[in-house]
């Protein structure tokens, strides 16, 4: 199953990971890996998730998470892993 990459970029605040993870759990999306770093003062998180069991389509996930990001005040992107695999692997 192809993975989806969720990235969260923005000002650090309490509960960002909790909110995203709650959404994922509610929709049967499994988190396989999380990494986090601070780049130029900004909170930067990447999750690799498997949405194979979820009833949400990719497009719905993209829209839901983007909306959630707007509410929290961070930028949440949700992208198919192949865009990164193709660009960075031969």
């Amino acid at each position, binding site marked *: 199953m192809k993975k989806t*990459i969720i990235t969260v970029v923005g000002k650090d605040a309490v509960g960002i990971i909790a909110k995203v993870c709650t959404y994922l759990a509610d929709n049967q999306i499994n988190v396989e890996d999380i990494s986090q770093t601070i780049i130029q003062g900004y909170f930067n998180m*990447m999750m690799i998730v498997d949405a194979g069991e979820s009833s949400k389509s990719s*497009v719905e996930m993209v829209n839901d998470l983007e909306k959630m990001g707007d509410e929290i005040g961070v930028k949440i992107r949700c*992208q198919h892993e*192949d*865009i*990164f695999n*193709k660009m960075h692997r031969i």
Partner: protein
Amino acid sequence: MVNIFEVNETNKMIEQEKLDVRTITMGISLLDCCDSDLDTLNKNIYDKITRTAKDLVTVGRDIELEYGIPIVNKRISVTPISLVGGCACKSPKDFVTIAKTLDKAAKATNVNFIGGYSALVSKGMTKNDEDLIRSIPQALSSTERVCSSVNIGSTKTGINMDAVKLMGNIVKETAEATKDNSSMGCAKFVVFCNAPDDNPFMAGAFHGVTEGDAVINVGVSGPGVVKHALEGVRGENFEILCETIKKTAFKVTRAGQLVAQEASERLGIPFGIVDLSLAPTPSVGDSVAEILEEMGLESVGAPGTTAALALLNDQVKKGGVMASSFVGGLSGAFLPVSEDQGMIDAVNRGSLTIEKLEAMTCVCSVGLDMIAIPGNTSAATISGIIADEAAIGMINQKTTAVRLIPVIGKDVGDNVEFGGLLGHAPIQQVNRFGCEDFINRGGRIPAPIHSFKN
């Protein structure tokens, strides 16, 4: 597995450096639409286009969302209409009805341009070819989304100078027919030498007769990404400069290849090619001129510009070829003056002239593109410029093209606004000496000696 730094790099390219896929262009053959009755022909054309491309725009949008990379344009190219309309069209007026049908089909499928109102006359013109060519001014002034092109020469056939002569008049008539709209018709009309069959970029896209029934071609972009990468190697030698461009071009092209394969699979239409052209837009930070200036030129047009462009073009190809299974189309850096803010600035600064642009077209695709010239430029002069560009293409075995806009009522010192992706441009000075007797000779320029390879 991907790591956070790679993910950040890609997303930074998309968000800050304007990485995008410039166009998904669906090529559709209309040869099976031929009929001797004009109404039936028009109906066949409309039905085939709207049937084949009905999902193009929605599939494009889905891919955009799922991969998080913008796909700026979704477009259609069709078989050159001079071939399709031949049986039914007895006059230029008949051909115009097909242009209107294409426009209607483009609107129905929600694509922003449809290309292929074209004729291929590199050696000679049939009556149909001539009728179509003579209909171009009216076709472009009575439609919105139709793009037209004419191929007037090739390395194999030489240059059809009768067609070149006619082109000067057609460009002028098109400018006149659309003078209330900044002579915009000319922005949708391009004259080629060595036109490729699989070009996804407008205005010159058409679905060549060597192609299958339908095909997906993709044009990538990314001048901003290349410019940004070069900011990191200021002062370094040419080896490092070239390696940096090559690696960046690889990444940009991979995104295009992915989108092309995905679109092809979802639409159930074979993947044709990825076009590696670096295509600028009028927005700041998306400019080919800025890349050249980043290499160390004070302003584009300065000595060194042609060399800088040559290496840019070559490295983009070297990086891009490995990233895609099929490369085609134009595949070179575009220099559309009105669509590249850096080029516009250079013209305004006085560093970039038409003559220098002509020299630059020897080392890159595609030609003198989107250049606004005084509205009173003579048809013979326009033909002369077309002949010069065609000669560069013919001798160098490459595609060259001319898309000049003689803006009616404007002169050097004025500006013209086309809007959107077509941008805006200062009116540029054209050499004031004539070439009428040369153009009026008529006939053909023979194929060059190096075309005889058999």
